[in-house]
Structure formats: structure tokens, C-alpha cells
């Protein structure tokens, strides 16, 4: 076996000086690869566990239900940021999810192939635009000469969310069997009825996956909000989106830079709230994804 490998004509395998060395090299690489994988998982666990260890002791009812305390006062919480984040995410999703899914329907059902390709490409590029640039853009369009506001923040988030929702929706709509269309057409149904009655219900699981992934992604977005919704009153509740809305990511950002251990504790607690939200959404999205994929595929 070894000799045949050494003499085979196309040079696919370099002639090995000895089986022992080749096996040793192989083993080394295998061990290195295993270590690399272990390392990556370890880093994830390290981050998650430090958030848990630091965040859990800091979390209490006050933290979740109270507003921040005045400078130098002990106690206080992050409830205004939790509420503000919820509002920002809700508005952003109300914009991004419908527009994203409609875009996906356009590319899979109506658009000519070239336009469809162009839109998909543009969405991929949009997905790659740094979110700080999105923040500068929304600042330039909505904040300059106006004011920071929850609306501006939410619209910035929706720009980040849109390509994620749209691409995920496209992917799953592409998987809906053409035979379902043909069956609909054979029954004399118009395109729009086929889309609403057959395609969308079939793809529902996948559409939800995309929406949930989009929400998970923007829940932690900090950079766009820093430029569009970061000036707020610490002591009072704001739920009015025409003012800047407090939010968890910017709160973590400013607390993280503070020298005070009490602020760090609050930052960890806020991080725990955020990471649980994001990781649970990601796992849920994945579960939906697997289910709808296996159903659609076969």
C-alpha cells in the first residue's frame, strides 16, 4: 500500500519517507484541530459563564424595575433601558419584517431573474455595511437639524435588520416546491392567491426563523443607537419615541467604561439580560430552521 502510493504516477501524494512520520504528522494535525475546536467552544463558554457569574449576583428585582439612581447614589436599576429597548426593537421589526418578507416575495415570485439576482446581491452588501456607518447615515438623514429620537434609532436598527430578514425569507421561499405553484395554477388560482394561501403558509416556519434572527441581531446593536438614541434622562421613564429612548446596549457601553465596581455590576446584569434574550432567540430560530427545512426538503 505504502509503496503503491509512492510510485503512483500523478504525484497526488508526495512520496513519504516513512509511514511512521506520516502517521505522526497526521496525528499532530488531528490533535491540533481538536484543540482548536475545543478552544473556540471554550471561549464561548468563558464569555457566557463570566456573564452568568458576574451578572447573576447583580440581578435583583430593584435592578429590573427601578430607574438609574442619581450620581453618587447607591442602588437604582435599568428598567428604563429594558422598556426603551423593547420599544426600539418593536418599531424596527414592524418596519423590517414586512418590508423584508415582501422583498423576498418579489424576488422569488415576480422579479425577472436578473433583477432578483441584483436585489439579493444588494441585500448581501447592505448586510455587510458596518452598523456604525448605518448610524452615521441615519444621523445625517434624521438627526441633523432635528433631534436624536427613538424613531431615528428604530429606523437605524431596521436598516440593519432588513437584509437579515429578507435573505432568510428568500432562502426558505426558494425551497417551496414549484409543484405547489403548478397545482395552484392548475386550479385556476391567480399568483397572489397562490402566494398568500399556499406559499407563505408552507414557508411560515422559515419566515419566523428569519424574523427571529433579525430581532436577535438588532437587540444587541450599539453603534447605530449611539448616534441616534443615546441622550436621555436617567431619572425618568421615557416611552415616547420622539425623544431618545434609553436602551440596554448603550447602557452597557457607558457602564462598561466606568471605574466604579457598582457600575460594572450593573453592566454585567444588563449584559446577562441581553445575552439570555439573544441566545434564547438564536436557539429558537435554529430549531424552527431545522424543522421547516426538513419539512420542505422532504
Amino acid at each position, binding site marked *: 500500500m505504502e509503496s503503491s502510493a509512492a510510485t503512483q504516477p500523478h504525484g497526488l501524494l508526495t512520496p513519504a519517507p516513512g509511514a511512521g512520520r506520516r502517521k505522526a504528522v497526521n496525528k499532530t494535525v488531528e490533535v491540533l484541530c481538536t484543540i482548536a475546536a475545543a478552544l473556540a467552544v471554550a471561549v464561548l463558554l468563558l464569555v457566557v459563564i463570566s456573564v452568568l457569574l458576574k451578572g447573576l449576583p447583580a440581578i435583583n428585582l430593584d435592578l429590573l424595575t427601578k430607574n438609574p439612581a442619581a450620581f453618587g447614589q447607591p442602588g437604582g436599576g435599568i428598567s428604563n433601558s429594558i422598556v426603551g429597548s423593547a420599544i426600539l426593537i418593536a418599531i424596527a421589526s414592524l418596519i423590517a419584517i414586512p418590508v423584508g418578507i415582501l422583498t423576498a416575495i418579489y424576488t422569488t415570485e415576480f422579479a425577472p431573474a436578473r433583477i432578483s439576482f441584483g436585489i439579493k446581491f444588494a441585500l448581501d452588501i447592505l448586510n455587510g455595511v458596518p452598523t456604525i*456607518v448605518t448610524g452615521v447615515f441615519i444621523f445625517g438623514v434624521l438627526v441633523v437639524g432635528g433631534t436624536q429620537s427613538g424613531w431615528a434609532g428604530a429606523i437605524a436598527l431596521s436598516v440593519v435588520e432588513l437584509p437579515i430578514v429578507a435573505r432568510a425569507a428568500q432562502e426558505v421561499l426558494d425551497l417551496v416546491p414549484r409543484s405547489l405553484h403548478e397545482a395552484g395554477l392548475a386550479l385556476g388560482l391567480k399568483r397572489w392567491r397562490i402566494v398568500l394561501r399556499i406559499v407563505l403558509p408552507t414557508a411560515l416556519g422559515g419566515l419566523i426563523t428569519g424574523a427571529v434572527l433579525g430581532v436577535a441581531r438588532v437587540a444587541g446593536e450599539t453603534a447605530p443607537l449611539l448616534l441616534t438614541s443615546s441622550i436621555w434622562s436617567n431619572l425618568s421613564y421615557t416611552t415616547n419615541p420622539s425623544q431618545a429612548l434609553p436602551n440596554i446596549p448603550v447602557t452597557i457601553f457607558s457602564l462598561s467604561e466606568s471605574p466604579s465596581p457598582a457600575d460594572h455590576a450593573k453592566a454585567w446584569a444588563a449584559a446577562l439580560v441581553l445575552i439570555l434574550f439573544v441566545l434564547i432567540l438564536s436557539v429558537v430560530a435554529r430549531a424552527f430552521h431545522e424543522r421547516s427545512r426538513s419539512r420542505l426538503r422532504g
Partner: protein
Amino acid sequence: MSVTTASRRGPFDIHARLADRIGQPALRILTTLAGIASVAVLVWIAETLVNQSRPAMSAFGLGFVGHTTWNPVKSTFGAGAFLYGTLVSSFIALLIATPTAIAIAIYLTELAPRVIRRPVAILVELLAAIPSVILGLWGIIFLSPFLGNHLEPFLKSFLGWLPLFSGSPSPYGMLNAALILTIMTLPIVTAITREVFQTTPGELKEAAYALGATRWEMIRKVVLPVARPGIVGAVILGLGRAFGEAIAVTQVIGNANQVKASLFQPAGTLAAQIVNEFPNASPGVYQSSLIYLALVLLVMSLIVNIAARVLVRRRKVG
């Protein structure tokens, strides 16, 4: 055919047709508008940045990109130092992330027992879901003291003769930012590399084994060459992510406008500079220069993303 179905519907016929007459174009127009909006946003972003960076462009021209002075007192601005910081921190990140990602992908596609392949892959990908501000917080509290007190003194004692590891260790600086960016780009590069590996034709692998190759020889001679364009695409995509990361980098890089060879020294990046100075820049050339920074960043991310998509796509088609 359609006539018979219609007549069978009887009294609903008119309603159904009326609904068809409205519903069909309505859905079409609605979806078309959404499609146009999605593309228009991208154009609008570029247009806004170009427009609003005009004062800085006319003041500093293209030389802005390479100029390393950033002095609000004298109203002289240049992106050079930040461009340097962005490129160096991202390249170091990918230098560490790429081999690691390839190793993980090899483990996940070739070595790992079948039962743990999916869970491990999911765990690695979940790393990408951690918000960057949390990674930055972790970087400030855990990573920076470790770097300042242990890793950097260690590197200095062994490799201190290299300019890269000279100077005094510092908890905030280029190395810290690069490591955080490594953690951020790792899952992206891993996910794509793994996908590409999985598409290696089984016959080729079996052929290599049949010729007596060890697993590593098979990977080196069959899997890697086939996957190369895909891996390059993945790395470039990771680079795009690293270029644009603003928050976590701001938290750990030390935010100094300087070009230093030593990786221990504080530095700045395009994105971090925008985070630091944008909220309080006075309108005029100052603010416009920061928007110009954003434009430079946008152009970089466009180039990188287009290149990566073309590479990854070509791989899929070919």
C-alpha cells in the same frame, strides 16, 4: 378549464374576480416597492455620506485617506492613523482566526464523532450571536488585565527584540482589539469554511484514501485545494466584519491617534474614531471629516463584501 372552475364557484364568482383584480396588482406593487426600497437604502446611504462629507473632501481631497494628522484645534483632519489601526487590528485578527477556523472546520467535517458535530458547530456559531458590546465588556474586565499583567510581559520577555512586542505592556491597545476581533470573526470564517468543506465530492476523498493517503494528506491534497476560493471568500468576509466593528474595539483599543509599531500601544480605528468624536463634533469641516471617515469605511466594506460574495458564489456555481 378556467371557465369551468369559475362557473362552478357560482355566486362567489364576481367577488373572487374582483378580489383577483385588486389583489393581484396590489401584491405585485407592494412587493416591487419593497424590493426597490431595499436597494434604494443602499444607494441612499452612499449618497448621504458622499454629500455630507463634501466640505471635508474639498478641504483635504483624497489625501485625507493617507494623512495622519487629526487635529480639531487646527481643523486639520486625515484618516491615515485610523486607517492604519483598522487594517492592522483586522489583519492580526484574521491571521489568528483563519488557521484556527480551518482547523475547527476540519475537526467538524472529518474528525469529530458524528453525535457531537452538530452541537459543536452550533456552539461555535452562537459565538457570533454574542452582542459586540458584551464582548467589549468582557474584554475590559477580563482580557485587558490578563494582557497587561501576563500575556504582554510574557511576549515582551521572549520576543521583545521585535518592534511588534516592544514598549511597555498596557491593558488597552492594538493587541487587545485584535484579540477581540479574532473572537468575532472566528465563527464567521468557521461557518463558511465548514460549509465549503462539506461540499467536497466524496469520491475524491475516497480516491485519496484508496491511494493510501492519511487523513491529513487527504485533506491537504483534496479538501483544501477544492475549498481554497471559498476559504479566501470567508476570510475576506471576516475582514469586512473586522473593519466595521466599532463598539468592542472602542472599548479596548485605548483610542489614541497614533501610528506605533508596538502592538501593546493604544491605537485608533476608523469606526472607533466615529464612536468617540461623532456625538460632539461641531458641524462644519470637523463633522464632515468624521462622515468622510465613515465613507472610507463604507468603500472598504463594499470592496471587501463584493469580492467575498463573488468568490464564495463562484465556488458554489463551479
